[in-house]
């Protein structure tokens, strides 16, 4: 049985240096991989650029000699196509867009130097097989992302503004950027103690830091070998986290711009996977191969690049909303927004330490009002997702995002 996996990427990137467009880069790339599954073994071959499918097939067959086990039934007899279309501008139009945004920022915020750039990207994935699998997914995005450095700060960067859009609305983009840069310019006194901390989704750098242990220790393989921090907690009927917390791996392409199938071609039903449901741990990240090996339930969580064999892992995580708006989750004292976290870690005891380089104070309505000095956000995973958890919003982190806010309590240490 043969599976053919293709990816195509077309990007136009405008590089911004010293607050002006300095370069244009175009990139068109195709990558093809062939997996041959035979007698519970798998062989793999891949190529970048133009490829000869038959030659790749022969190469994949030749690699069966290594006896890499793959004792699973591949997906079959399913066709599905999802296209999350968006803007497509010519390079000239992209330059005009970028210069209009940069022009406004340079005029309104002359104290900053802006760099990085604007990228328009179309990515497409396709999995087909001899067993009748035919899955297509494509997504268009335009990302406007600028590193902002305050002139004279002595830092290599101070903050950033960025949005990822299907369809760009310049006024809304500028409104987002203005709100952040204006707040950044208002320096507030240091905050400390146990505070409400707002995360702009769970897939930003800050959110990834918060959920690091979920991603690593709820892998089926890690759990099955007894190495997980959450050992013994799966489906044990106990509430290990807040009863208001339901945490999901998102594949519902009707509501979010995500690919609906995983790298083994699995389309889940329901599309979203509850990892934590009302405080109970309900599912692990287990692809077909790991499920077979460790005697676990497969959960449609095969990830990885196409040149590799699929591995288990979560993709986009989101908490089930508990409130419509951020203001509902913030008391009169407001909260702090973890805008940019660099590094950080979670110990095996579940102790999280996130160095917040940019921390924004929010008023009771969730509006940014100023910048707090850099500090470390500390908490234990069982508290951050448990007693400390405040809620998650339907309100998106910006008008272009699929993600809501996640609010919890953490210790702010200067």
């Amino acid at each position, binding site marked *: 049985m043969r599976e053919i996996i293709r990816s195509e990427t077309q990007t136009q990137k405008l590089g911004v240096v010293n*607050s002006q467009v300095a*370069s244009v880069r175009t990139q068109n790339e195709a990558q093809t991989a062939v997996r041959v599954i035979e007698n519970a073994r798998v062989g793999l071959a891949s190529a970048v650029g133009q490829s000869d499918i038959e030659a790749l097939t022969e190469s994949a067959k030749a690699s069966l000699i290594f006896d890499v086990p793959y004792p699973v039934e591949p997906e079959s007899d399913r066709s599905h196509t999802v296209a999350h279309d968006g803007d497509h501008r010519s390079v000239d139009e992209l330059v005009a867009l970028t210069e209009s945004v940069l022009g406004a920022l340079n005029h309104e915020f002359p104290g900053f130097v802006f760099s990085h750039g604007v990228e328009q990207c179309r990515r497409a994935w396709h999995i087909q097989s001899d067993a009748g699998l035919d899955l297509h997914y494509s997504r268009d995005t335009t990302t406007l992302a600028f590193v902002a450095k305050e002139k004279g*700060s002595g830092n290599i960067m101070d903050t950033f503004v960025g949005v990822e859009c299907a369809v760009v609305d310049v006024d809304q983009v500028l409104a987002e950027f203005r709100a952040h840069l204006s707040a950044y310019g208002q320096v507030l006194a240091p905050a400390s103690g146990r505070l409400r901390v707002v995360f702009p989704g769970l897939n930003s750098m800050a959110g990834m830091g918060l959920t690091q242990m979920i991603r690593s220790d709820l892998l089926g393989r*890690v759990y099955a070998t007894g190495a997980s921090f959450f050992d013994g907690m799966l489906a044990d009927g106990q509430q290990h986290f807040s009863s208001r917390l339901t945490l999901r791996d998102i594949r519902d392409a009707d509501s979010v711009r995500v690919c609906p199938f995983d790298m083994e071609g699995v389309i889940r039903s329901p599309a979203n996977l509850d990892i934590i449901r009302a405080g109970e741990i309900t599912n692990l990240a287990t692809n077909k191969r790991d499920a077979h090996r460790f005697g676990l339930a497969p959960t449609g969580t095969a990830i990885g690049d196409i040149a590799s064999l699929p591995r288990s892992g979560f993709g986009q995580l989101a908490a089930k909303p508990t409130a419509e708006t951020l203001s509902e989750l913030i008391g009169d004292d407001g909260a702090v927004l973890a805008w940019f976290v*660099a590094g950080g870690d979670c110990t*095996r*005891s579940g102790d999280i330490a996130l160095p917040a380089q940019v921390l924004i104070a929010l008023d009771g309505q969730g509006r940014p009002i100023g910048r707090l000095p*850099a500090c470390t956000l*500390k908490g234990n995973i069982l508290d951050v997702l448990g007693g400390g958890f405040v809620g998650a919003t339907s309100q998106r982190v910006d008008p272009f995002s699929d993600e809501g806010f996640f609010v919890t309590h953490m210790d702010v240490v200067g």
Partner: protein
Amino acid sequence: MTTLHPLDAISISFPVGVYADVRLERTTAHSIVLRDGVLEEVQTTTETGALLRVLKHGRWLYASTTALDKIDQALAELARSEALSPVEATAGIDGLAVHQAARYVFDDERVDHLEVPPKLALLSRFTGGLGRAAIKTWSAQWSDTHRDRRFVSSRGADVRHDYQECGLRLRFTVGEGARAVEERFVGADHRYSGLVAQEKVLLAALEETLDKCEHFVADAEAVQAGTATVVLSPEVAGVFAHESFGHKSEADFMLGDPAMLEAWAMGTSVASALVTITDGGADWGSGYMPFDDEGQPTTKTVLIDQGVLVGRLHSAMTAAALDETPTANARAISFRFEPIVRMTTTTFAAGTFSREDLFKGVDDGYFIETFKHGSGMSTFTIAPGLCWRIRNGELAEPVRIAVITGTVFETLNEIDGLSDQVEIPFLVGGGCGKMEQWPLSVGFGGPYVRVRKMSVA
């Protein structure tokens, strides 16, 4: 030579009237993954592509392509493009020396020509020790990479060079639940024979690491957050040099900010007088790169000399913009990207203390032996792995530390001792990230470095 280096056979016709250059690249990589005793993957990838640059109206037009037979057309299209209007900007191409050279140094033993079985056998010999009862899960990855690069310009430059590395990377979780520890072990070399020659030493080092992990699991308690005296191992000192100061030395961060240039003027005291930090691509190791991605020969750049700022890292453009000397630090992670200012191998220079005397100077502090990852902006962060308490100058019990952090200059000024031997670990897997370009193979290291005051949490 052509069969060994197929990029040599490609000829390029440059468009007239503009400056243009092409960076051709061919990379072959193998990966073998064993996980908990089962072979999970054997992977071979070969990528051939090119990054084309055309300078027009003071701005750069780039295109990356895998169609090497259509480079001439792609260059002509870029040269015709009017996408960007003229600006007064310095590209620095006048500072690019024209070199013609071939520096192929790995033809004697091409790691990409070696079959899979001996690589798998070597990897398997290292997994034997992972059968300890305390180890709950492990993975072992062999990886090797051979890369040819060729830089050709419309001014006549034609520079060809190669790089290769091979190595094994073991990851293991020792102990259970909250007391468990995750660690890694890396052995690497430019040649397979070099790695085999180190096998006994590496196996002994692996056993020692596993023993330490078991001790750590049994006895480590969480650190009391605060500030403390810290001794960094050579690899942690290296990542500190890279994250804390190296990134600040990259000159593209200076552009458009005269005040920052003033604050970072050459001759400014930025560190303790004991501190000297250098960067260079000419030495062997994971940061080896004889020419940068603008065809310039790499050298060693002194960044801090006895606490005083004396240099920074440049591409041709940043050197011209700041009117400083180019340092051949324009690098890209692959043909998909344009070169930007990046580090190569960044190290603290040796000090004068013996290792023992360095520790003896600490009544109460911590030794950071390994790290998981690091990052740096105005403050830097390192997530440590194995850490130990220092009591009365001696290593004592293990301790769990999530992060060590500090502001860069305060910390550099708190260094009050460095040992007299520099160690630069050869790394495979991972690398440095900057903006969208990750991972870039770099090296870092140093001696043991003592910092009088650092935040631990």
